[in-house]
């Protein structure tokens, strides 16, 4: 919503400065987006009189001028072709900053003649791109007049952001009302004297809705004005419209636009000569079309309201007029429409047709219904003043929809809800200034809501009115009580897992990323996604069309982008949600990471090594452990979802029904499909699946240690290739649970004939006495027997 200061002052009697007004606007909730104030920019420039301009003695194209300025007579050298004797121009005196260049002007000698000041072009003052000559101003302006005044630029334009609840502030009068309530001036009463009609309107109006349900347009006010003379509107009107970014068209159209902005009351002026028969508001017929004033053709449907005559629709109600009956320079008889349209229907129609107009903007937010007739009267008077002619009697169909409602504001409520200490008398005067009919009762102020405030629906709204005019900045902050002296923990187990997983990943060297929650459909499909219910109906692009089924695809794509930038080795991780369906339970919090390239790059110490599935396994287990999973008890089984290498991937689980995550090499087909080069290993764990801690207190179990030295024995077994190391280790561990404290695999190599040699180191921890050799041999025999039984392997000799 834009307006100019002088326009505002038509309605607000004030002596405040533009800065105070802007501060006031911000305070009452009308956020100032922009102020363009040419007066401020041009404050150092004034009108000067060129009393003599003659040829420069040493240059054909330059002129030597004698100029009368506010600081006395100056000699000026000027190259402009229009620098001639007698004109009034704009002068830059020594010391002023030229807006276009930011340079400070100082006198200079040009071809041997001193130039003591500068005559300015529009471009130099940033008024336009014009630089073919100097600015000439009307000779009526005395020397020393501020440039902005002489140029008609002394009316600052203010652009405020109006929140959708405040249609009343989409008229300058409404803004003036807020400022007056704020104490920044006095709201001038409107001159609403009706214009007396002198004849009956030849055009009748009616509301023509099924079952007489006039909700789409409960009120239509028309007026016929004959004998007008249309043409360009007066300069002052054009200037105001231009200042707020509107293009002047003709007096009749400009007047309707003027009323739209001045009072938030859209109107439409039909060329009465082009109207066939009478005018009615009705629902559109399916497929009807309208050539609109934006030079587009619209096909209408039955939920839209139109203003029609016998020939068909002439306007889309509350949105835009049609070209067929529009006013032109030749218009002599005009039919002025002032109606009230249902906000919801107007909004829906505007959205469906994709039309954004000043009228729609206001009607869909709620135009003051009680102002329908008043707006028509003001416009009629303005037409008669500027275009001549005579007005008919008012024709009217329907009635003003009632907005009457009263809410009680407890006198204590502003204090108890807003924490603002506003005396009741001030509350009353604020509400009254905003147009509320205030009736003071014992404990309450009963407030009748003005017709222009469709947003007021209860006591809380009244508190807001008082608080915003009182000023939220004037409410002193009030400390709150602490719920407990020392803060209690606030994170739940899953949140703690998330933090631990993230810090663990970073400590292992991962760079944590946050990638989109969506991805291209083909990537979703590669990772088990792509379900219909996870597909966006209105994606921002096909690259972001589906919700991600896993964190991995976006990390892998990011790895590809980073390797294109020259990074060969990288570790990227993310902790975030993945989506298996559209129900809340289908969203799981996960931690995932990818490693690409080498674990340790080429270095002087040797040992460069490409990433492999065991790195990913270590990452997964480390994250799970950090997240509190009982890592010693988890099962790692071969095989993982289809996006992993089938022979180089595993699943970590607490049991077949509780999978904690998976790891491994990414399947080469997936990498090829995503155009990312490997080697690339990855893991993903589901933090929701990690079982919660069973510990009931902080107390630890007692430490049990033995002073007896542990001893270790090595065993090598020959087993079938298919035998998994985990199975062998488990068997060995189970051979004597009391004595065996640890079993680790330390060597593995392939033998001929589908066999593998697996070597383990078994640690024995004696508890109460040193083991004798026969005892050790007995345990060893048990280990061999257990392994043989479990794996079919034999002890290597």
């Amino acid at each position: 919503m834009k307006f100019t200061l002088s326009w505002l002052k038509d309605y607000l009697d004030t002596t405040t400065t533009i800065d105070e007004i802007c501060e006031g606007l911000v305070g009452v909730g009308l956020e100032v987006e922009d102020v363009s104030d040419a007066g401020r920019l041009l404050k150092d420039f004034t009108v000067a009189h060129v009393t003599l301009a003659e040829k420069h003695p040493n240059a054909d194209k330059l002129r030597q001028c004698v100029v009368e300025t506010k600081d006395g007579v100056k000699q000026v050298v000027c190259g402009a072709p229009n620098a001639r004797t007698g004109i009034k121009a704009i002068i830059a005196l020594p010391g002023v900053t030229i807006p276009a260049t930011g340079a400070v002007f100082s006198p200079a000698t040009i071809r041997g003649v001193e130039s003591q000041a500068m005559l300015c072009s529009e471009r130099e003052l940033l008024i336009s791109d014009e630089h073919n000559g100097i600015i000439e101003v009307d000779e009526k302006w005395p020397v020393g007049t501020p440039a902005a005044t002489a140029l008609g630029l002394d009316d600052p334009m203010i652009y405020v952001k109006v929140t959708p609840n405040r249609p009343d502030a989409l008229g300058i009068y409404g803004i003036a009302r807020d400022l007056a309530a704020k104490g920044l001036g006095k709201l001038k009463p409107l001159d609403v004297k009706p214009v007396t009609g002198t004849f009956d309107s030849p055009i009748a109006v009616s509301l023509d809705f099924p079952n007489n349900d006039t909700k789409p347009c409960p009120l239509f006010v028309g007026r016929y004005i004959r004998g007008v003379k249309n043409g360009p509107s007066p300069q002052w009107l054009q200037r105001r419209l231009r200042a707020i970014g509107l293009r002047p068209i003709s007096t009749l159209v400009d007047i309707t636009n003027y009323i739209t902005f001045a009072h938030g009351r859209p109107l439409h002026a039909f060329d009465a000569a082009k109207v066939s028969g009478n005018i009615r508001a009705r629902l559109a017929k399916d497929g009807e079309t309208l050539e609109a004033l934006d030079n587009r053709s619209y096909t209408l449907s039955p939920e839209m309201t139109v203003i029609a005559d016998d020939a068909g629709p002439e306007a889309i109600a509350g949105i835009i007029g049609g070209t067929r009956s529009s006013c032109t320079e030749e218009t002599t008889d005009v039919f002025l429409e002032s109606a009230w349209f249902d906000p919801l229907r107007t909004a829906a129609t505007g959205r469906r047709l994709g039309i954004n107009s000043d009228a729609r903007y206001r009607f869909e937010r709620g135009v003051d219904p009680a102002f329908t007739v008043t707006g028509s009267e003001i416009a009629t008077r303005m037409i008669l003043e500027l275009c001549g002619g005579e007005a008919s009697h008012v024709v009217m169909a329907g009635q003003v929809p009632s907005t009457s409602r009263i809410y009680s504001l407890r006198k204590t409520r502003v204090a108890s809800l807003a924490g603002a200490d506003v005396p009741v008398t001030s509350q009353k005067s604020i509400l009254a200034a905003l147009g509320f009919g205030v009736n003071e009762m014992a404990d309450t102020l009963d407030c009748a809501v003005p017709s222009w405030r469709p947003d007021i629906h209860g006591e809380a709204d009244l508190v807001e009115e008082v608080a915003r005019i009182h000023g939220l900045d004037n409410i002193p902050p009030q400390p709150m009580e602490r719920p407990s002296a020392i803060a209690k923990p606030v994170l739940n187990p899953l949140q703690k897992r998330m933090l631990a997983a993230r810090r663990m990943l970073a400590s292992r060297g991962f760079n944590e990323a946050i990638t989109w929650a969506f991805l291209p459909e083909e990537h979703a499909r590669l990772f088990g996604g792509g379900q219909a219910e996870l597909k966006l109906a209105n994606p921002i692009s096909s690259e972001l069309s589906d919700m991600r089924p896993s964190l991995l695809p976006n990390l892998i794509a990011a790895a590809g982008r980073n390797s294109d930038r020259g990074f060969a080795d990288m570790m990227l991780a993310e902790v975030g949600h993945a989506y298996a369906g559209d129900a809340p339970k289908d969203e799981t919090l996960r931690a995932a990471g990818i490693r690409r390239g080498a674990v340790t790059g080429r270095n002087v110490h040797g040992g460069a090594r490409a990433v492999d599935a065991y790195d990913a396994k270590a990452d997964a287990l480390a994250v799970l452990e950090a997240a509190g999973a009982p890592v010693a008890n988890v099962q790692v089984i071969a095989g993982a979802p289809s996006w992993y290498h089938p022979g180089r991937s595993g699943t970590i689980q607490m049991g077949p029904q509780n999978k904690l995550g998976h790891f491994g090499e990414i399947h080469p087909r997936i990498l090829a499909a995503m155009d990312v080069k490997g080697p690339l290993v990855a893991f993903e764990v589901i933090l929701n699946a990690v079982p919660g801690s069973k510990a009931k207190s902080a107390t630890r179990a007692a430490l049990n240690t033995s002073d007896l030295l542990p001893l270790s024995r090595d065993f090598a077994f020959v087993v079938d290739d298919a035998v998994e190391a985990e199975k062998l280790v488990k068997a060995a561990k189970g051979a004597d649970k009391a004595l065996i404290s640890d079993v680790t695999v330390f060597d593995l190599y392939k033998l001929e004939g589908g066999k593998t040699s697996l070597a383990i180191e078994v640690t024995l921890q004696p508890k109460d006495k040193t083991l004798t050799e026969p005892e050790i041999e007995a345990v060893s025999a048990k280990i061999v027997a257990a392994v043989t039984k479990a794996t079919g392997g034999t002890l290597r000799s």
Partner: protein
Amino acid sequence: MSLEHLEQDILSQVEAATDEASLEALRVATLGKKGSISERMKSLGAMSPDERREAGAALNVLKDKVAEALSTRKIALQEIALEARLASERIDVTLPVRPQASGTVHPVSQVWEEVVQIFGDLGFSVAEGPHIEDDFHNFDALNIPPEHPARQEHDTFFFNEKADGSRMLLRTHTSPVQIRTMLASVPPVRIIAPGRTFRCDSDMTHTPMFNQVEGLLLDETTTLANLKWVLTEFCKAFFEVDDVKMRFRASHFPFTEPSMEVDIQYSREGGQLKIGTGDKWLEILGSGMVHPNVIRAGGMDPDKVQGWAFGMGLDRIAMLKYGIPDLRAFFEADLRWLRHYGFRALQVPTLAGGLS
């Protein structure tokens, strides 16, 4: 050979020995069973007692001298050998260590923890809700009926309509968590709800996904003045300044009444934003007293319960605090950006240790 000559001869040989082996040979040749001194000892038997006493004493002195010389020389040789070995073992300590990736935590994650630290101290727990929401939680319950203009302005991502006509959406703000929390709890309620939010919008300053944090306090007496205090204290703590100038502007949100937007004063020095000084205003959050309709939708009685809520951009406050210029880069996973703007693994923000 006289004893004096023998002594001189042996001691000079000891001195000349250059390694432990020749020293050992010398020991055998002198003090060994058949060594020169041992041989002379054997000859003592043939002497008279007086001669034997005198010669024996002299021989014992010699024996001790030689033994000590051998031992001294041995230690000296060991020292020399150790020095030589150490000299040969010198490494170039300026060589780089074995490469080890150094990880980072994303700025949004870091700021998540900072915000939780501050509000946790005030007794706010962390609540969460699904990203895929329904109309009820995202709009209706927040006093945004289907025809409300704000509903259009939210640039909502929708999923396809289901057979029953309903359709899910991506939450456009973290406010649905207010409703879920209210429906699942009894007052007093103090929560913050940080998380991802989505809007169908993408340009220089908007991304289709971004992070917000919601705050909600419900009890019987809290006021807008309390909200102002909390927000002011939050800004001071978060931006780590003693004083911060804030501007509280009346505004409008369907889910709060009265509503206010909050600006923070800043300056730009050398291209960097500085909070707490200057004369420019920057909007950082929207807030207000929870609308009675919202309290009702949350299953509570607005005549008994009142409270306030706020919402602000986590990404935005991260940008402000850490001088990160471009929102879009937050979600591009560019290693150069992650390494530059990320935080070290052990740089955990705490109230005791500081938030940055």
